[in-house]
């Protein structure tokens, strides 16, 4: 997931985490954004619901609190009114009962004021002071009226009443209490209004949010479904391709095998057809030599000799080429082979026929190999006869054969102290008909090492060679220790 514009630090880190998680869960861009959206909406809805329930609590609390205060104020008002009536009653009738009632009422007023002081919010403090003052003044006026009544008789107190001062005070008290009642009522209203707003918002957003959330989830399900379908289709295609591929491979293999067989048949018949005339040439040259040799001079005999030798060489080339191509069609058998004994056998066979100096032979311990005896014999034959051939000019020729096992492979080394070869041409060494020495220096067709390489490769092994001119050469081949499939 990538965003076109750089994000501020606080957003980019969580985004990175989210992106990493989405990748790990193999979610595409749209499904993960959709899921993110759905989760976001759900969180918002949760927030709304939480706020809504909190608002309800607040509303109830505010309402009850203010209602309690309002009730208290009303009770106070009642007490003040009743005290007023009681006072009136006393002043009119002089009945002591009224006076006692009035005393009780003033006490109650006092209690109510104390309660109010405890219940009112702190910002009403000034108002309460003002009320207390007014109530105190009113009570003082009434107290004075009682004293005047008791001292000067009802007429005097009536005059006080008529002055209206007491009335005026009572009215001030009433309007003060009413004003405060209003404030509290208004407070409740405000709270209710806010609560109603909240509820309206929730009742709008809740279905909307749920709807969007569901839609988003449905959308992501669709996307995931489509992804899954795409994947299933891809898998089906892959299976189809695979089976098609196998058929293709089979057909190709059959083609190649047929081509191979044709090639082998061709090379076989070619070599046969080439051999017959060679026999004729060499035979009749011999006849010339035998029957007419005495009549020829030295030059004539030399010319015949050249012809005979070249014919022989051509025969060798054909034989080597045929042997090389036959390697491909021969099936190899796999068995356990005592390599040391095989090497010794081959050495004895080579040196038995060898006319020159026989090199010293140092045979070390060789690990037993798993492979085809006939062809591995050929490998030893070629390597050892090479060693003998290329040490033919060395004063004290030595051929050393050693072996080792390493990391599941057996390695065999043939080292000689002969003429060696130029290491720059190592890569040409194993090519067919590729030689690093001229025919004059050493005879050979240049197929021997190619045959060695072919056989070793068919066993799943490797060949390599090291040398410095004049310092001998080391040829090594390795075979897998475990019998693998022989190609």
């Amino acid at each position, binding site marked *: 997931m990538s965003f076109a514009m750089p994000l501020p630090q606080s957003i980019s880190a969580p985004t990175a985490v989210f992106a990493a998680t989405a990748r790990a869960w193999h979610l595409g861009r749209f499904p993960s954004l959709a899921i993110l959206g759905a989760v976001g909406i759900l969180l918002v809805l949760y927030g709304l619901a939480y706020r809504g329930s909190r608002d309800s609590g607040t509303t109830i609390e505010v309402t009850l609190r203010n209602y309690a205060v309002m009730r208290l104020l009303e009770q106070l008002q009642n007490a003040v009114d009743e005290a007023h009536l009681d006072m009136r009653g006393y002043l009119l009738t002089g009945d002591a009962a009224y006076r006692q009632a009035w005393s009780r009422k003033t006490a109650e007023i006092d209690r109510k004021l104390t309660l109010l002081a405890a219940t009112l919010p702190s910002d009403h403090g000034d108002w309460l002071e003002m009320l207390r003052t007014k109530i105190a003044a009113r009570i003082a006026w009434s107290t004075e009226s009682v004293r005047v009544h008791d001292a000067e008789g009802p007429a005097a107190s009536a005059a006080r009443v008529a002055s209206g001062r007491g009335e005026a005070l009572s009215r001030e008290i009433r309007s003060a209490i009413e004003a405060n009642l209003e404030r509290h009522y208004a407070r409740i209203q405000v709270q209710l209004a806010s609560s109603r707003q909240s509820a309206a918002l929730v009742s709008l957003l809740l279905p909307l949010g749920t709807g969007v959330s569901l839609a988003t989830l449905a959308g992501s399900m669709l996307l995931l479904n489509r992804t899954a379908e795409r994947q299933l289709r891809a898998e089906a295609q892959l299976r189809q391709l695979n089976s098609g591929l196998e058929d293709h491979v089979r057909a190709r293999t059959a083609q190649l095998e047929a081509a191979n067989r044709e090639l082998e048949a061709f090379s076989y018949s070619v070599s*046969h057809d080439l*051999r*017959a005339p*060679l*026999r*004729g040439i*060499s*035979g*009749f*040259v*011999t*006849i010339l030599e035998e029957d007419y040799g005495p009549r020829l001079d030295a030059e004539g005999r030399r010319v015949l000799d050249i012809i005979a030798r070249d*014919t*022989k060489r051509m*025969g060798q080339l*054909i*034989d080597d080429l045929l042997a090389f191509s036959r390697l491909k069609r021969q099936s190899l058998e796999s068995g356990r082979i005592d390599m040391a004994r095989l090497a010794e056998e081959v050495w004895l066979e080579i040196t038995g026929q060898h006319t020159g100096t026989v090199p010293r032979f140092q045979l070390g311990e060789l690990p037993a190999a798993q492979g085809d005896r006939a062809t591995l014999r050929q490998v030893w034959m070629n390597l050892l006869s090479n060693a003998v051939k290329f040490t033919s000019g060395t004063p004290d020729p030595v051929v050393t054969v050693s072996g080792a096992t390493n990391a599941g492979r057996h390695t065999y080394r043939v080292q000689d102290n002969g003429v060696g070869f130029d290491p720059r041409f190592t890569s040409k060494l194993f090519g067919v008909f590729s030689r690093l020495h001229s025919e004059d220096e050493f005879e050979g067709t240049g197929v021997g090492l190619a045959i060695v390489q072919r056989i070793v490769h068919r066993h799943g092994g490797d060949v390599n060679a090291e040398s410095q001119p004049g310092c001998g050469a080391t040829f090594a081949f390795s075979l897998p220790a475990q019998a693998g499939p022989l190609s």
Partner: protein
Amino acid sequence: MNITNNSVEVLLVEDNSRDAELTMRTLARRKLANDIIRLHDGQEALDWLRAEGAYANRDRSRKPKVILLDLKLPKVSGLEVLRAIRDDERLRLLPVVVMTSSREESDVIESYQLGVNGYIVKPVDFENFSEAVASAGHYWLLVNQEPR
């Protein structure tokens, strides 16, 4: 090369004239055989052996000591000739040695299955070739006892 009417030592069935000449020269020089009849193809061989066709009037009492048989022959192949020889009561016991350039395992096996007495692969160079002819000739003409 002498072909006398009294005895036949070698019946050479070879279509390649050079190979035939070299074979006969070797046998003569080593003094292994004087009487060699050379035939050119499978049909001629059968005609001679059965005294039919061009050879209807030959003396049937003359039997070769050994038949040197090439496999790659025109008209009738060497293997077919061999089969015919072994199927014929009068010819069944004649020693037959295949001399061919084919080293094919299938040819060798089939030849022996048809009852050949020997199988020689013609060496490429003349030296070895004449050695092979000489030693085969020595064995089959001097050492071996043929049925009469």
